């Protein structure tokens, strides 16, 4: 299998019978006169985990907002589950922003269950649905804690649970660990790897950290500096396994990382 393919050539290796979950073609977007994205092509198979890396300011977050249906593209098309209309995309995607954005007046449990409440579940029903996940994700005992009482890593986990409980087919994660220090980051990557393995969702993960992307994703798309366009997509050499340190120091991983960094450097100009 070719490790690096020139975009927009697509051969997603994990596309199953379920077909394509996200189809992006010739996508471009500007804010006022600032061109943020230019000719982004990407297709993501159902249940595939795809990373998007690029230099800061290359429009990675904008790309997620476009997929999520929070923005309408200026050029090109975005389809989620073959639906192009923004409300349809919004119905299929859940977007986890960079900051945890937990509501300080709600407990961790109530924060996690927000999507259920929005869909009309009562307070108790939402809590009952969220509580088992707290145990599973190492947050047991912190159900009634307020966000201010939690560490950065725990807040991020609660935010991730809130995202999972929205139970949408597509998860869009925007630099989920950007605000964490290196040690918590490594721990959280292992944690997320486990969490994603158990989740039947399609995932697009945006990060500026090539190693994080290659470790967590099946495939990584490299964007150029602003205006961002897809340069290459690189297949991850290893399946997500534990421990993380063994994976990221393997020769195959190192060479994939070098290819990605090289592409980044070329695209950064």
């Amino acid at each position, binding site marked *: 299998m070719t490790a690096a393919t020139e975009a927009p050539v697509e051969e997603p290796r994990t596309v199953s019978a379920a077909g394509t979950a996200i189809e992006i073609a010739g996508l471009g977007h500007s804010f006022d006169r600032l061109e943020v994205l230019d000719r982004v092509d990407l297709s993501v198979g159902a249940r595939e985990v795809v990373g998007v890396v690029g230099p800061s300011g290359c429009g990675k977050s904008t790309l997620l*907002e476009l997929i*999520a249906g*929070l923005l309408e593209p200026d050029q090109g098309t975005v389809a989620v589950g073959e639906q192009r209309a923004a409300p349809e995309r*919004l*119905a299929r*995607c*859940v*977007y986890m*922003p960079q*900051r945890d*954005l937990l*509501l*300080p*007046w709600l407990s961790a449990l109530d924060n996690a269950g*927000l*999507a259920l*409440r*929005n*869909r009309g579940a009562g307070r108790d029903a939402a809590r009952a649905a969220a509580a088992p996940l707290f145990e599973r994700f190492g947050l047991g005992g912190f159900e009634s804690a*307020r966000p*201010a009482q939690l560490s950065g890593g725990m807040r991020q986990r609660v935010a991730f649970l*809130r995202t999972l409980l*929205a139970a949408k087919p597509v998860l869009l994660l925007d630099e989920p660990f950007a605000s964490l220090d290196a040690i918590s980051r490594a721990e959280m990557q292992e944690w997320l790897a486990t969490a994603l393995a158990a989740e039947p969702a399609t995932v697009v993960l945006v990060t500026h950290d090539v190693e994080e992307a290659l470790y967590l994703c099946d495939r990584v798309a490299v964007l150029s500096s602003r205006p961002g366009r897809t340069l290459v997509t690189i297949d991850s050499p290893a399946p997500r396994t534990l421990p993380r340190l063994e994976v990221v120091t393997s020769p195959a991983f190192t060479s994939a990382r070098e290819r990605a960094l090289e592409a980044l450097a070329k695209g950064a100009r």
Partner: protein
Amino acid sequence: MSARQGGAVAPWLLPLGVVVALLGLWELAAQWDWIADALKIKPFLIPAPSEIAQSLWDDRALLAEDAWVTAQEVLLGFALALVVGFGFAIALHLSDTLRRAFYPLLVASQTVPVIAIAPILVVWLGFGIGPKLAIIALVCFFPITVNTLDGLRSVDPELPRMMRTLDARRSQILRRVEIPSALPFLLSGAKIAAVISVIGAVFGEWSGADQGLGHLILIAQGQLQTARVFAAVVVLSTLALILFGGLALIERRLAWWEPRRNRRIAG
């Protein structure tokens, strides 16, 4: 006194000390007729704090009766301003058109000299509680509405977007995110309104009333019973302080997540 050790006590002690010192000075100045001599007026026009205290005690039945009337006006007028102001702020927040149309009017409402229109309101609404409520609500309305509107508009713009991807409707974003975010602002506005509400009550009663502390002040002034005037003023201030304190308590219970911006730094 070290700042660390004094931190817990000093906030109460310091203003109390100032008040005691000022009252002491005033007492001496009144007892020895310094003020009256300096102003060339009759000494009985300058009541000493002890005489005011005497009046507070002697006139307690009268003061209590009028205070009850004024307290009702203040509470009802304040509640009216709270309900109308909150509703108005939400309406202006939800509609750009409404905001553009009414915001200048909102500011203009605050420039109206309440004391000048109070008599007109009495003519329109009669001598009952109506005009008093209208005047109190008018002075309280502005700080409540403007603060609530500011609070609603200062919500982190990422929060509504996050809520939208969690399938929230507009009304749910308002209820679950925007109103709780605005609550500390609303309560700040309400505290300002509470303090000025008694001023509104006095204006209202001066324009036509047969009871209430404002009315009592007017009568006592006519009879040159200055100690009683001051006694009524003390009761009025106490009313405002109780309302303010109650709101501060509610703020601590309802908006506890907000780091108290003006909280004193205690050791």
